[in-house]
């Protein structure tokens, strides 16, 4: 290893070349591409559990699996399995396939299905609807039908304190709130109990969550499992208008978004970046107690993507790009028809050949059925 300035690694992501610093993850490289060129946003793998501001998060939901078609310039072998892009670091010369690989999209479809089979789908009464990562994820990658016929898993309701409402039934066990409590607050009172699909987020022996930064677990939750009790059932997110604001807070940065409905501040949240990640965590006083415009210095309307549900009031399917693999396959396997064969005119030969071809086709379809 030479100890000069860090050499940049060149990787190819979905056919786009990008140079990143060593130690960058595949996900961050993809985000770098999208940040440089807004039209490429759809190539970024979705993240349900990974949260950049929380070190050690990621690798759990498997939504961001990608195919590494070439490990590095030195070792050109592909990686045998799909790898989670949020925690896999890039190597020089790596070639990654995300939206250009059918297996990746197939696996992702599977993940959506897995996450949804036990999700209650109570979006019409869920406060998170409209800003829910699972909704976005399912809309972009899932299918409209379910193959799940059994009863969905439910949990007993638990009260975890005055500010945060826990709806365990909606949880997708991303562990983000656990990392937040570990890394942002001074003491963690909740964690994951039990095992397998009975795992649940809970406080130890029904204690309540009580510390100054506990409200942040609402912001990091990708679904409606942790919601704001002071905001419950008050509003649909697309009816409110977000405004950037700040205040002089002795506990946190005081940089927030005020969500207005008419003249009333109905909710305060932390500011998020393009990827839905909190920029600076805020304290409970800012979040739950300063709900008057006079408490804040307004900065102007928050920039919201035109395509988002908050702005457009609906999901816009025209913005979801779905690659056509049949066309791609046809393009790569296109061959000119071999015209050097003799032209058969004899009727019996033609009949015989067609029977033979039919048999082959039948055999193939049987094989496909059996495998």
């Amino acid at each position: 290893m030479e100890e000069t300035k860090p050499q940049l690694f060149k990787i190819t992501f979905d056919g786009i070349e990008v140079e990143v610093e060593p130690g960058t993850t595949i996900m961050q490289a993809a985000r770098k591409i999208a940040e440089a060129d807004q039209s490429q946003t759809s190539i970024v793998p979705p993240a349900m559990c990974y949260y950049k501001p929380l070190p050690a998060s990621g690798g759990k939901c498997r939504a961001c699996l990608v195919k590494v078609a070439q490990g590095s310039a030195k070792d050109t072998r592909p990686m045998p399995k799909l790898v989670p892009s949020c925690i896999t670091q890039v190597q020089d010369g790596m070639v990654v396939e995300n939206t250009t690989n059918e297996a990746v999209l197939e696996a992702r479809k599977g993940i959506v299905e897995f996450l949804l089979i036990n999700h209650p789908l109570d979006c019409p009464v869920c406060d998170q609807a409209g800003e829910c990562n699972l909704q976005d994820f399912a809309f972009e990658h899932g299918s409209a039908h379910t193959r799940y016929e059994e009863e969905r898993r439910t949990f007993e309701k638990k009260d975890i304190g005055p500010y945060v409402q826990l709806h365990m039934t909606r949880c997708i066990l991303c562990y983000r709130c656990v990392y937040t409590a570990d890394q942002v607050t001074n003491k963690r009172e909740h964690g994951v109990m039990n095992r397998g699909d009975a795992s649940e987020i809970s406080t130890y022996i029904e204690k309540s969550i009580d510390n100054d930064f506990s409200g942040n677990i609402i912001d990091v939750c990708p679904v409606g499992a942790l919601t704001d009790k002071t905001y419950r059932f008050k509003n649909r997110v697309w009816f409110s208008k977000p405004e950037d604001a700040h205040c002089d807070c002795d506990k946190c940065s005081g940089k927030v978004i005020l969500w207005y409905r008419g003249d009333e501040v109905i909710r305060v949240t932390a500011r998020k970046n393009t990827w839905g990640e909190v920029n600076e965590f805020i304290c409970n006083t800012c979040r739950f107690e300063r709900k008057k415009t006079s408490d804040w210095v307004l900065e102007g309307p928050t920039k919201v993507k035109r395509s988002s549900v908050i702005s457009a009031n609906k999901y816009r399917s025209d913005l979801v790009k779905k690659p056509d693999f049949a066309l791609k396959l046809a393009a790569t396997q296109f061959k000119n028809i071999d015209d050097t064969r003799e032209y058969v005119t004899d009727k019996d030969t033609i009949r015989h050949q067609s029977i033979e071809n039919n048999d082959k086709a039948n055999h193939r379809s049987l094989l496909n059925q059996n495998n």
Partner: protein
Amino acid sequence: MARKILTEHIHVPGIETFDVYRKQGGYTAVEKAIKSMSPEEVVEEAKKSGVRGRGGAGFPMGMKWGFLAKPEGVPRYLVCNADESEPGTFKDHYLMKTIPHLLIEGMIVSSFALGANKSFIYVRGELMYVIRILEKAIEEAKAKGFLGKNILGSGYDLELVVQPGGGAYICGEETALLESLEGKRGNPRNKPPFPAVKGLYQCPTVVNNVESISNMPWIVNNGGEAYAQIGIGRSTGTKLISASGHIQRPGVYEIELGLSVEEFMNSDEYCGGIRKGHHLKALVAGGSSVPILPANLIMKTANGEDRLMSYESLSDGGFASGTMLGSGGFIVFDETACIVKNTWNFSQFYHHESCGQCSPCREGTGWMEKVLHRIEHGHGSMHDVDLLVDITKKIEGNTICPLGDAASWPVASAIRHFRDEFVWHITHPSEATAPGAAYRGDMALV
């Protein structure tokens, strides 16, 4: 009589005590390694022996030791994985309870080779009495100067700790085991980094199975090359097989790798054949997580060669017509066994034991179990079979640890080889749900 390495002295009365074990030539490997060999030489012997991990994956142990990072000033650890919980596998349990000093001796030799001064044996929580046996053996070895400070006056220190687990299958996965050993929730870690670089307490760590480590005293005494002579091809040495199911003589047998499956199943020295008046229907060759084989693929491979008890021969033909040696849990089914019920049973196990960390395994294992429950109880429909195949494909390879694969292989292989039995359950629900019912269609019985 076949060659025995691990179980040679196992029937000597009092072998669990230090004195009897010593009289049978025990602890000579410790003396030889510590007094006359360097750690590198021991690792070299392990590499030469070609001994492969006996926990299921079959990764060469010497190579695994070679990957161990050795940064200055950072402790290294050896952890023995005795969390044997695979349904159908009970070899480590037997080895530890009857001849605990073999494992202790192996641990001393291996720790010396790796330069570990503190080593752990992680035993599954259900086996508390085995833990007491091991602790007693450690006390005895310590009293005789084979453990503790300054072993045999060489200046090498080793502390051996026996740690009971909580009885979770997932803690047999090496990184989950390390998490559990650290006192955390037993969730597998994302790899890389591998334990050889960042393992226990973020220090380089080697995790080996009980049986792998127990081979070390023999390898040190007789040399790695002598060990490599035993067995066949790249499957060197002997292997403990836990035979169970519909056979005459279930139990733990030590076989030389390369023994034919037919001989193992039918000879009176081993399983003694299928129970009288019945026919072989299926075989799970290496513990519940490996693919199940139908009768016509057990004795011969798809190419018509004899199937042998070795890593290569059992996996001949890939998953289409082969299986894996795995951890050596040899489960035999005769024609009275219902494959659907058995698959459902395995699937229940994986559903119960999934740690719940990553979504395909957490949700998929439960889903498979519910669909199989439905089929087994006569409420299935034809598309359920294809649904199951699709779920297995979506779990396999997409999870953090191999539990997802282990849960999907038995289901996928059962459908691959016994699809007509699943279909029969769906088309004949009343017959299939009758007590003791098993499909007797036109399948090949041997």
